[in-house]
């Protein structure tokens, strides 16, 4: 046993030399998908010469890791993932405000006024319809939140869980917004939708998968996830948007408080907001809308001119999230 213990110890000593934590190196907590994260960091390194590594984490996982590190974070910057997570992190004092010069090209409502976080992409909620499955029950592609409550859609709607998925929470908050800011109204809508939901999935785009496979007639997803599925081979899927108005997610980027390489982290934020980086999404199958006004959206991305957006209060959504999610768990999930 002593001999076997020696192996990891030797490993440690050997590699401790390699990972001494050089100054020109940053670590990113990345909340978007693997390939997007990989492309972003690789191009960043090419541009600046600063080495960048990333770990893909959901918002909650990233939060838990940053929080648990108690002021000695392993990450320098946080990139991707919905802004409500960033809001919560800001409230916990985990973010280092940084007003990037590049933020000037981004609408004020898409970033934190204090510079705690800045929006890098926009995802719009839509319906991912499988016309074949809907036709079996005599339905057309769904175009309104109200129509989703139709009894014929029993167990035929895919949606993500508000606790595990940014998509899920955006659905919930959109209903709050449509209910005039009333949390009760938002929860009430989900309670009525619940019988039609096949399952509250862990991840946001699983509903697009389910629609693609025909497990459900319609999935509530960010429209770019449905587009990605179409690209993946589920060509028959159709994206629609609710006429009552729909919610959206702002993907954020932020510098983490106590970062070992704050300079590198700020350089990364500048890069993430640049037009050049925001054009990269479609090349890796990521069709969210860019926030940088200088970037023309890809033709497959949602067309904001044809969509009604609700008045989405990002800070409010972020602050309400823990409580609202818990209420969802207790009042809707556990009550079933």
């Amino acid at each position, binding site marked *: *046993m002593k001999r076997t213990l020696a192996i990891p110890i030797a*490993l440690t000593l050997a590699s*401790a030399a390699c990972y001494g934590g050089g100054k020109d190196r940053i670590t990113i907590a990345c909340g978007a998908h693997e390939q997007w994260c990989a492309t972003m960091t690789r191009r960043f390194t090419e541009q600046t010469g600063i080495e960048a590594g990333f770990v893909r984490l959901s918002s909650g*996982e990233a939060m*838990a*890791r940053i929080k648990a*590190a108690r002021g*000695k974070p392993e990450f320098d910057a946080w990139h991707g993932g919905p802004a409500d997570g960033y809001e919560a992190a800001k409230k916990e004092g985990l973010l280092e405000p940084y007003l990037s010069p590049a933020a000037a090209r981004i609408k004020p409502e898409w970033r934190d006024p204090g510079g705690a976080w800045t929006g890098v992409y926009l995802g719009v909620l839509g319906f991912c319809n499988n016309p074949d499955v809907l036709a079996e029950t005599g339905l057309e592609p769904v175009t309104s939140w109200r129509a989703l409550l139709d009894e014929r859609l029993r167990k035929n709607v895919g949606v993500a869980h508000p606790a595990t998925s940014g998509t899920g929470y955006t659905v919930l908050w959109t209903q709050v917004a449509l209910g005039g800011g009333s949390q009760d109204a938002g929860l009430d809508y989900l309670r009525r939708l619940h019988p039609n939901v096949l399952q509250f999935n862990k991840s946001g785009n699983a509903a697009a998968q389910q629609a693609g*496979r025909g497990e459900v007639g319609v999935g509530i997803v960010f429209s770019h996830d449905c587009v990605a599925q179409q690209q993946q*081979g589920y060509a028959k899927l159709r994206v629609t948007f609710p006429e009552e108005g729909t919610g959206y997610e702002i993907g954020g980027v932020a510098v983490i408080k106590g970062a070992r390489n704050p300079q590198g982290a700020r350089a990364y934020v500048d890069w993430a907001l640049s037009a050049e980086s925001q054009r990269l999404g479609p090349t890796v199958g990521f069709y969210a809308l860019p926030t940088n006004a200088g970037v023309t959206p890809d033709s497959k991305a949602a067309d904001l001119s044809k969509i009604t957006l609700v008045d989405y209060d990002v800070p409010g959504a972020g602050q309400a999230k823990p409580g609202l999610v818990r209420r969802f768990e207790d009042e809707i999930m556990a009550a079933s």
Partner: protein
Amino acid sequence: MSRDRGGRLPVRVAIGAASALVLAGTVYPLASVLAEAATPAALPRYARLTSASDLGILRNTLVLGFLVATAGTALGLLFAFVQTRLDVPGKRLLHWIALIPMVSPPFAVATATVVLYGRRGLITHGLFGLDYDIYGLDGLVLVLSLSFFPVAYLGLLGMMRALDPAMEEAAMNLGASRRRVFRTLILPLLAPGLAAPFLLLFVEAIADLANPLVLGGDYVVLASRAYLAVTGEYDTTSAAVYSLVLLVPAIGLYLAQRHWVGRKVRVTVTGRPAGRVHLVSGWARWPFYGLAVLVALVIVSLYGTVLAGSVTEVFGVDFTLTLDHLRVALGSEAIADTTVLAAVATPIAGLAGLVMAWLAVRHLRAGSGWLDFAGTLGIAVPGTVLGIGYVLAYRSDLEIGGVTVLPGLVGGGAVAGGSLAIVLAFVVRSVPAGLRTATGSLAQLHPSIEEASTGLGARPFQTFRRITLPLIRPALLTGLSYSFARCMTSMSTIVFLVTPDTKIITAQVLSAAGMGYYGVAFAYCTVLTVIVLASLAAIRKVVA
């Protein structure tokens, strides 16, 4: 009763090493989390535990654990029975098929289940025209039982092979029918062997996270609830409280099992089985065989889907062959990282489990329960919580008087790219399986064989190395194999420990599946499965 009172140094060293492992790997990180659960701020959280919703979650968890443990143990028994007592063809193949689920990467099997047996499943809907909703308890029980039963199977297989057939002959001779022999003789003799996998499966089932998330539907269990508290509510306190609750049934069941098995000490292996196994060759063998073959077919279909999914564009929609997914997976550094770390962790875990079992069964009367339990704890704690515990406990450098005593072990920038913490997590998560199988087989080894060695002048450690170890080698093999598979497939803890320098396959599977790149996810799982199966063969070669 102390079997020896001198020459205890190796025993003490072993106790020290085992305790250190448990303390560093489980207790301290867990305590770091629970410290949060013990703050005054957490008090109101406890009051809510009696709420209808939390009680419902607790009930769900227990029901799931019970069903999976029962079904998984029954499956293990069925396969072991077919293997050792039936005169049927293709037993070798059945054996290997039964081992495949040891490699159960999160997401892949659950996803394959949905693809094949879900609402629009290629089999349930496509073949039989059913509109079956697999999300929920039934789907969970199916997937979890299939995923976890191999460990029960291997343990019971070893035990049934070791049963002295003369006893069965004696019973038959007394006029007992085959069925009666099974019920009144084999089952009671296997009882300690059944209790061990039952406990293990129960604990694994209630601690499993990936499947309740993918397949759970409205069925919320404590593990997923704790995960949701972390990821959705940013509420580690609640997660810690839920974990505390999750530990209660695990501990309770554990104590019950000890009490029950402890009262009926059955020693069956004397190293001298007499008589000959009488294989069932009448018509009665076919229902059992049929059932086993059906289960085997389901397993093959699921893993076949994973394999097929990794070489087709979009399985179920576009069956065009492609190597792109595999290319992505094989190009990932995660493959090498994971394999190396698992290879480092496996011998440590296998040996630790064995040593703990040896100490618990043979050397510590009073303390054995605690050690055994502490070893099992690694799996009873939800991985999410353990992961957070690691971050809390080992993220910062440990300094005493301004001197760094222990550098941070977790995260980017930590020593060895955070791989030490990952290895530690691998070890504590996979020790329990080895511990349980080793305990089961040690309990069956007649103490006089070891006493004979002691009487001839062997010190405890010499006896262990020369006598005990070779005799429980099959159990060791099982333990090692299972440990390696666990390492390669564990996810929930690892999510909190991966760094840019150490990528882990399961985390890649997770993100690929999260992206909707199911082909890539399947490809990762295929590669993972191949590596594990190849390693199992290698372990067999090395140990045998």
